[in-house]
């Protein structure tokens, strides 16, 4: 649908905040976080999926025929709205929350000590990526979704249920957002209003340099951005290290200059006259 959804950041934030009871306290009592693990994961994912569907229904469906810039602005407004809603309910102070502490212990594999949570993150990411590829390539709904991304009008004429497919796309992005919010919370142990922002901005840039509308492109872009940021972190002199993000973002602009459509160009991305 060519929507760059800023509100994705707030899906992540809200998913994480759903773990705790809304109070002004810095170490709030747990809400969803107090439930057994399976129920907790399900609960957080459910909250985020419902939220994603709600924003789709209220803010994006009425705008479906607008141009990409309008959608961009509208998602910016949704994001601002959600961020301030969280601030209203949970106050703006960062909070600490402890879930899954047992995962923080290091695991030793072949002489390399790796924190458990990073293994979990890698496992979940790989699992989700495989599941997503399978869904998009093999199931009827996934194929419809790819058709819609390629040529929305044509797909509709051929009988694709537009509302259902787009809602499903939002639900999936909500699901992935919920997974991110859980992993992020386990890793950092803190809740912050802007916790979703940086991952999502990195995600945008990765998608854009990978090529919009291409899943391999998004994965490739994600790797590039990640590798660039780690390399810069390692090899920059210490006093330049805080500027790492600036280096990564400059890289994004440079890649776009060479390949404005992204690294992997799909037929959907070509401009039609």
């Amino acid at each position, binding site marked *: 649908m060519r929507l*760059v959804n800023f509100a994705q950041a707030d899906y992540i934030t809200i998913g994480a905040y759903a773990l705790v009871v809304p109070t002004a306290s810095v170490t709030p009592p747990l809400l969803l976080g107090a439930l057994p693990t399976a129920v907790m994961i399900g609960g957080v994912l459910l909250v985020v999926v419902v939220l994603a569907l709600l924003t789709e229904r209220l803010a994006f469906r009425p705008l479906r025929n607008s141009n990409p810039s309008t959608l961009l*602005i509208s998602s910016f407004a949704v994001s601002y709205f959600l961020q301030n809603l969280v601030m209203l309910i949970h106050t703006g102070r960062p909070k600490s929350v402890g879930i899954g502490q047992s995962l923080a212990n290091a695991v030793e594999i072949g002489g390399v000590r790796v924190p458990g949570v990073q293994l979990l993150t890698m496992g979940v990411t790989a699992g989700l990526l495989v599941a997503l590829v399978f869904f998009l390539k093999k199931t009827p709904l996934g194929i419809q979704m790819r058709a819609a991304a390629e040529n929305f009008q044509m797909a509709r004429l051929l009988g694709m249920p537009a509302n259902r497919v787009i809602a499903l796309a939002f639900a999936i992005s909500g699901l992935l957002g919920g997974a991110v919010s859980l992993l992020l919370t386990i890793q950092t142990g803190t809740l912050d209003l802007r916790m979703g*922002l940086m991952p999502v901005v990195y995600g945008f840039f990765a998608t854009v340099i990978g090529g919009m509308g291409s899943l391999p492109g998004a994965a490739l872009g994600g790797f590039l951005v990640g590798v660039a940021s780690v390399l810069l972190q390692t090899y920059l002199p210490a006093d330049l290290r805080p500027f790492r993000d*600036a280096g990564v*973002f400059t890289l994004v602009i440079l890649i776009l200059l060479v390949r404005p459509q992204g690294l992997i160009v799909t037929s959907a991305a070509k401009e039609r006259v």
Partner: protein
Amino acid sequence: MKSKTMPSFAAIGRFWLPVLALVVPLALIVTVTGQFGGLSLQRTVIEMLISIVIVVGLYVFVGNSGVISFGHATFVAIAAYASAWQTCCEMLKPITMAGLPPFLRDQSIPLLPSAIVSVLLAGAAAFLTGLVIMRLTGLAASISTLAVLFILNVVYSNWDSVTMGSASIVGLPTYVTAWLALACAVLAIVIAYLYQISAFGLAIRATREDEVAAAASGISLYWSRLIAFTLSGFMVGLGGVLLAHYLGTVSINNFFLSFTFLALAMLIVGGMGSLAGAVVGVVVITAMVDIFRRLEGGISIGGQQWSLPAGTQELIIAAFMLLILVFRKDGIMAGREIGLPEQAQREKGLING
């Protein structure tokens, strides 16, 4: 006979009407609030006029080119910081901003030259970023302006020896009065108007309507957008200088996403297709922000104290913007300027024919 050699008063009037229709009400607001308004109302009016400078500057690029920019807060910040370096707190500068070059660190520069230099710097920054970014079109361009905003934010919040990191620089001389702000707002409106009816302006508005057709007519997307982006950088830079010397403090966190959101909201609500839209949007949003800020502060109705929870104002602004986007996509002014009916007809004919 005379009317043939030089334009009559009526013709001049018609030419300047879209500007006068914006400037005169603003001047009236300043006069009336200056005479009868309380201090807080006067401050709101100054904030509104500074916002007009910034949003009209933003309009020069976004409105005319149709490309959304998230990066203009960058140039506001550059000008504000440049002005702070030149004029702020002579005694403290060698300690707090030790990394400044000596000619800046050890002396203050008079206000007017410093303001001019700051605006020029913002314009130069816009020109340089424009050189790169204007090669891109559509969403890629918007995303890149966002990247520029993040780059500046990261750099300025970590460049401790020069920008004091994410701390505020306090103690800039506050010389901005309502009349000075009005003068700058009028200047911005006049520049934007002259630009949009110039050949450059018409060219870029053509690219907004149809990139391919405009390019086929011999208009360079790159150069027309670069000109608009640079001009717009100068103008928001002026806004940045005003903002810095109105608040007396500069902090990088004030020039990030919330600032960008508010400026874009003003432009979108009024309608990004016309100069009148930009100005009307600022007035409407400023009024809303002010009203709800007061309600959040608490008012008494019938002896009882009422107040909205803090943060309501932002929610309402965002919701209002979404409603505008859904129900009146082109904003309040829907891309029209304020003019005589006859003139509106002629402009329509021009667009259609």
